[in-house]
């Protein structure tokens, strides 16, 4: 009698435990990104955002019942290390790659992913070339560099109506492609580019080149920089009293809190292209921004928003996929059409890009030390300030 009870209990226990054990199945996703080195700041923001997304996804039941277990590997911003990490991941049978930040690393990872027929979701790398290679396995969620400044250019054409423009950009892939893109846009819209000059990132003194810009009196000064050059440029523009109808930045360094923190009053009125702001009305956007700010005391940059949304996109792809092999997930991505905190995500073959998501970009302006969305008008949080007052007249 006792024996039978014991056996029945054991079977019952097993029957109850089995689904629990099955539900404890997890999907391990290791994400390569720069956690040390020059790009560490962006890597940190993205890591925190990925973690936040994973938490939410798991709280809602995970992906088809499996818990999403995240891991991170530091590529230090070097392409060889990024590639090495990804090869190791693919070897250990991870069927999908998500992550990286710099365009150089993303290029290296994309090449590996394509070679080894593993889908790769690009989250924050801007270089146009990444989705122009006819790759079948590389999907990019963030817009291409050529489109980064769409809203900004639109603002220029509709509101600022400049006749001349000076472009300053840093000597990296990001800076070069950003400057080229702006030059094309300017030509298309009849704006004469009076100066297009590269500068060495990290230089302490931009005043010589800024004096040159000043002597050409452009209507708009457009700059493409990473973190600190943006602040230094504006500070020195203020020092020189270089006046223009508008100062504009090409995202990155001009769209992060460090810019306003370091340039202070010199940052006021500066307009920048950006891919996302905390004030947007996309589904989940505000909640994400406020949750992040509550936890980390600062709003996330657009890199964070993209990282956050990327995991939801991954979830959608994996939910739709017929199986979780590389091919299955790839097909899953192809079919994704999702409203995320970063905006609508759908991968299309358009304009010579493959598997590229075309989400609208925005323009922001620093007003009273805060970033406000000013363009397009229907997404604006505050009206724009134009023309900007001369330096001498600012208080």
């Amino acid at each position, binding site marked *: 009698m006792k024996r039978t009870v014991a056996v029945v209990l054991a079977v019952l226990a097993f029957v109850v435990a089995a689904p629990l054990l099955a539900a404890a199945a997890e999907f391990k996703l290791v994400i390569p990104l720069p956690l040390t080195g020059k790009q560490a700041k962006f890597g940190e923001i993205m890591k925190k955002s990925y973690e936040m997304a994973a938490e939410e996804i798991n709280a809602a039941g995970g992906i088809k019942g499996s818990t999403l277990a995240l891991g991170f590997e*530091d590529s230090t911003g070097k392409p060889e290390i990024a590639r090495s990490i990804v090869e190791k991941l693919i070897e250990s049978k991870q069927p999908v790659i998500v992550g990286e930040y710099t365009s150089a690393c993303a290029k290296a990872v994309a*090449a590996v992913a394509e070679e080894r027929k593993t889908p790769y979701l690009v989250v924050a790398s801007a270089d146009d070339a990444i989705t122009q290679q006819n790759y079948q396995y590389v999907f990019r969620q963030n817009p291409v560099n050529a489109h980064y400044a769409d809203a900004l250019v639109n603002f220029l054409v509709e509101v600022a109506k400049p006749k001349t423009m000076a472009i300053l950009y840093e*000597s990296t892939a990001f800076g*070069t492609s950003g400057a080229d893109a702006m030059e094309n846009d300017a030509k298309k819209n009849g704006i004469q580019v009076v100066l297009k000059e590269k500068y060495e990132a990290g230089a302490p003194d931009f005043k010589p080149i800024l004096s040159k810009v000043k002597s050409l009196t452009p209507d708009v000064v457009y700059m493409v920089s990473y973190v600190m050059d943006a602040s230094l440029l504006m500070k020195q523009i203020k020092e020189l009293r270089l006046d223009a109808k508008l100062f504009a930045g090409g995202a990155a360094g001009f769209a992060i809190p460090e810019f306003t923190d370091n340039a202070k009053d010199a940052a006021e009125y500066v307009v920048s292209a950006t891919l996302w702001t905390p004030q947007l009305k996309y589904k989940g956007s505000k909640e994400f921004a406020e949750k992040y700010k509550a936890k980390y005391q600062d709003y996330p940059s657009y890199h964070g928003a993209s990282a956050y949304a990327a995991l939801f996109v991954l979830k959608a792809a994996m939910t739709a996929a017929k199986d979780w092999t590389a091919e299955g997930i790839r097909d899953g991505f192809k079919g994704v059409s999702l409203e995320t905190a970063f905006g609508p995500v759908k991968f299309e073959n358009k304009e010579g890009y493959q598997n590229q998501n075309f989400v609208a970009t925005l323009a922001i302006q620093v007003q009273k030390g805060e970033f406000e969305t000013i363009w397009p008008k229907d997404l604006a949080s505050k009206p724009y300030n134009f023309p900007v007052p001369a330096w001498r007249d600012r208080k």
Partner: protein
Amino acid sequence: MNKRLPPLVLALLAAVPAISLVPGVNANYWLHNLILVVMWSVIGMSWNLLSGYCGQVSFGHAAFFGLGAYTAGLLYVKLGLSAWWGIAATVPVVGAAALVIGFVCLRLRGPFFALATIAVGVILRVVAENLTGFTGGDLGIMIRERTWVEKTWYYYIILAIAAGTFWFVERVVASRLGYYFVAIREDQDAAESLGINTTLYKTIALVLSAVIAGFAGAFYMNYMGYIDPKVVFALHDISIMAIMVVIVGGVATRWGPVVGAVIMILLAELIRTIPKIGAAHHTVFGVLLIVVIIFLPNGIVGDMAKLRRLLRIGRPS
């Protein structure tokens, strides 16, 4: 033993790809690291020839590495040829560049030569960055489809290059050339007064060293599939790494660069993967460098006897 060691090591290394047959072992990951080790031993041997044996300490070997990489890359981008031709093209291109660089810099002695080589490295990097029409500037060069997906053939190619270099350097060092190199290193003026044409031999050392480093660069282009000026002309990641590899391994020894490459690359990868200490890998390297220079100034291989003594002292009697 010494005579049979090189072929033995070579045979061992050649057999390595067989580990892919062992289940559960991440063969590609280890092959990748080994490829890097072998590539760095080539770069190390190149530096060793010029700086270890001939005494002209170069802090700008990235210049030759980068030139080799760009030769291969540009052949692909501009002429549509397979980038592997870069290895052959390295000989005339990097050789010629070395002649020019040597003409300017070899008249400088010791630390001044070192400084000048730093300058050359930086100049080449900035030139590559600015000549956007020619080199692609900061966007770099990307090879659409690498020749092979599997690593095995890459491994054998670099192993062949390394074996060839090892054998070549050994022949040079054992020859009259080697004799002259060392004489110049020890006392250039005495050598000159003995009738040795120091300029000629220094130039030979430089050209040989440059071309070998160029081979490594061309290989890198083919293997990685992507280069840009900041990666291949890097001061810390290439030039100084080359120096570290040989100093730690042992200057002016046959095996020094090989031992050094093994230590530096594998150590780097090991440390990088340990989560907490990962970020500190430069500190570990710096400390390693300092310790080696103070206690084992001729490197592990060079000061093998001293190393043995030190370790023996650590043992309880």
